[in-house]
């Protein structure tokens, strides 16, 4: 089991990505799918997970909901990488004043709780998933940068770095290729997996809260589906198809589990 776990984790993580591709390829219209004659249908051959209380196909919405987090969370990862990796790597490599300044800046960002930071950004600049992704990426960057900083600093004077320099490898090449790519890509990947999971949870939470007040003030607003707003939309309905509430919750749990397993396997092999 423990040997299978990393693979199961990766499989669970890849699942939403595959679903995302499927959803982009498919021609499901989230807006026009309402059909109250199908309200709260139980799962059947035509609708594998049944329908929600407006008669929309739960499975299709579950699939389409991947659009609300897969792309944005990848974007969040890119943002975190673009900010966190250079900041951490350069301050670790250079040390001294540049490192102090960069780390001061990052610590300032990190001192705000991430969730609060995201909410602040939403409140100030409006509520869109891309913006939330940007905020999440920025909010996560200090964590990534700090991790990389610590590692680069400890690797900075290892023999092979000196040898590489002696061989005439340019600092940039040693830093980016040998230190970051060859030696720390797992670390970076693990942080990306963590951020992916974090963003999924964030988006789901925000969309859930947004879905509760019926007006979609946070996160993804109906009719666009999100696993969070799907739960919020259904759970108060006394006659709801139980799958319409459970399925998005289970999907979230599975992907998070996948992220945990994958992340753990990346740590184990690192050591």
């Amino acid at each position, binding site marked *: 089991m423990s040997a299978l776990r990393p693979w199961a984790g990766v499989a669970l993580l890849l699942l939403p990505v595959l679903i995302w591709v499927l959803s982009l390829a498919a021609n499901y219209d989230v807006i026009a799918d309402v059909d109250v004659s199908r309200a709260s249908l139980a799962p059947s051959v035509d609708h594998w997970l049944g329908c929600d209380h407006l008669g929309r196909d739960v499975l299709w919405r579950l699939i389409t909901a991947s659009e609300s987090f897969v792309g944005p969370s990848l974007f969040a990862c890119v943002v975190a990488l673009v900010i966190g990796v250079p900041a951490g790597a350069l301050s670790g490599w250079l040390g001294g004043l540049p490192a102090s300044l960069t780390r001061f800046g990052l610590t300032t960002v990190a001192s705000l709780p991430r969730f609060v930071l995201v909410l602040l950004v939403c409140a100030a600049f409006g509520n869109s998933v891309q913006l939330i992704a940007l905020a999440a990426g920025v909010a996560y960057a200090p964590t990534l940068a700090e991790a990389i900083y610590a590692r680069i600093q400890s690797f900075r004077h290892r*023999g092979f770095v*000196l*040898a590489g320099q*002696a*061989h*005439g490898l340019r600092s940039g090449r040693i830093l980016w290729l040998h230190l970051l790519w060859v030696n720390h890509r797992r670390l970076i990947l693990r942080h990306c997996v963590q951020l992916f999971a974090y963003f999924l949870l964030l988006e789901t939470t925000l969309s859930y809260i947004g879905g509760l007040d019926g007006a979609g003030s946070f996160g993804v607003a109906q009719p666009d589906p999100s696993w969070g707003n799907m739960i919020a939309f259904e759970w108060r309905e006394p006659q709801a198809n139980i799958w319409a509430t459970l399925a998005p919750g289970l999907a979230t749990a599975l992907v998070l589990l996948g992220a945990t397993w994958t992340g753990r396997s990346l740590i184990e092999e690192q050591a």
Partner: protein
Amino acid sequence: MSVHLRSLRILAGKRALVSQVSLHILPGQITVLVGASGSGKTLTARSLLGLVHGIEPGIVAADLEIQDGEVIHRPYAAVDRERAFVPVRGPLIAWLPQNPRAALDPLQAVGAQIRDCLKLSGQNTGLDVAPEPWLERVSLAKSVGRLYPHQLSGGMAQRVGIALALARGSRFLIVDEPTTGLDPSLRAGILEELKRARDSGVGLLLITHDLRLVRQLGDHLLVMDRGCIVEDRPAQDLSAMQSAQAQALWQATLRLEARQ
């Protein structure tokens, strides 16, 4: 082409770690730098490459001059040091640190690292970047290319280090304590490799505390003690060494040999 280092002085605070050191490395010759631990020999060697980290600003002054053809004259200065050494590191001088395994990227296969050096050297562009010939040149099996540093024995690591330097195409090679921790047969093999390198025209600076090496393959001998060169002479007839420190070292070596 030869390397000349003149008047090197390295300070840590007010204490001089190295003072007034001058040395020359000539192509096709092995210069052996001998000294007890802490005598400043590794520091001197690294200063040739501008790799004196952690004690800066420690170098007060030195002239590094590489003659013949492209003459580079670099008065040491705190400013812009890194860039000043770019043309030196690799194409001119390679360095094999004391623990050769630590000098290899732990997470990259040996072959890939040799390939990197080949690419860097610029001499093997295009298709001919296979690491195998270089492994063979240092008497290693081709399959070693697929191994990672932690899978190498000490001797193999040392050979890989030499192969890297050769692949890099450096004119000069600084070898720090190549035989430490090796059993006699392996030691002989490594010395053989170094000789072959010398014979191919590479100038070597061999750093060791073992005077026996000087006898086996030295062309020129430098003895350091407490940051100063105390003996600077051809490697023949070691018994005629002038300084008391060098003599003491020589006697110690003889006693060691006798015991063995």
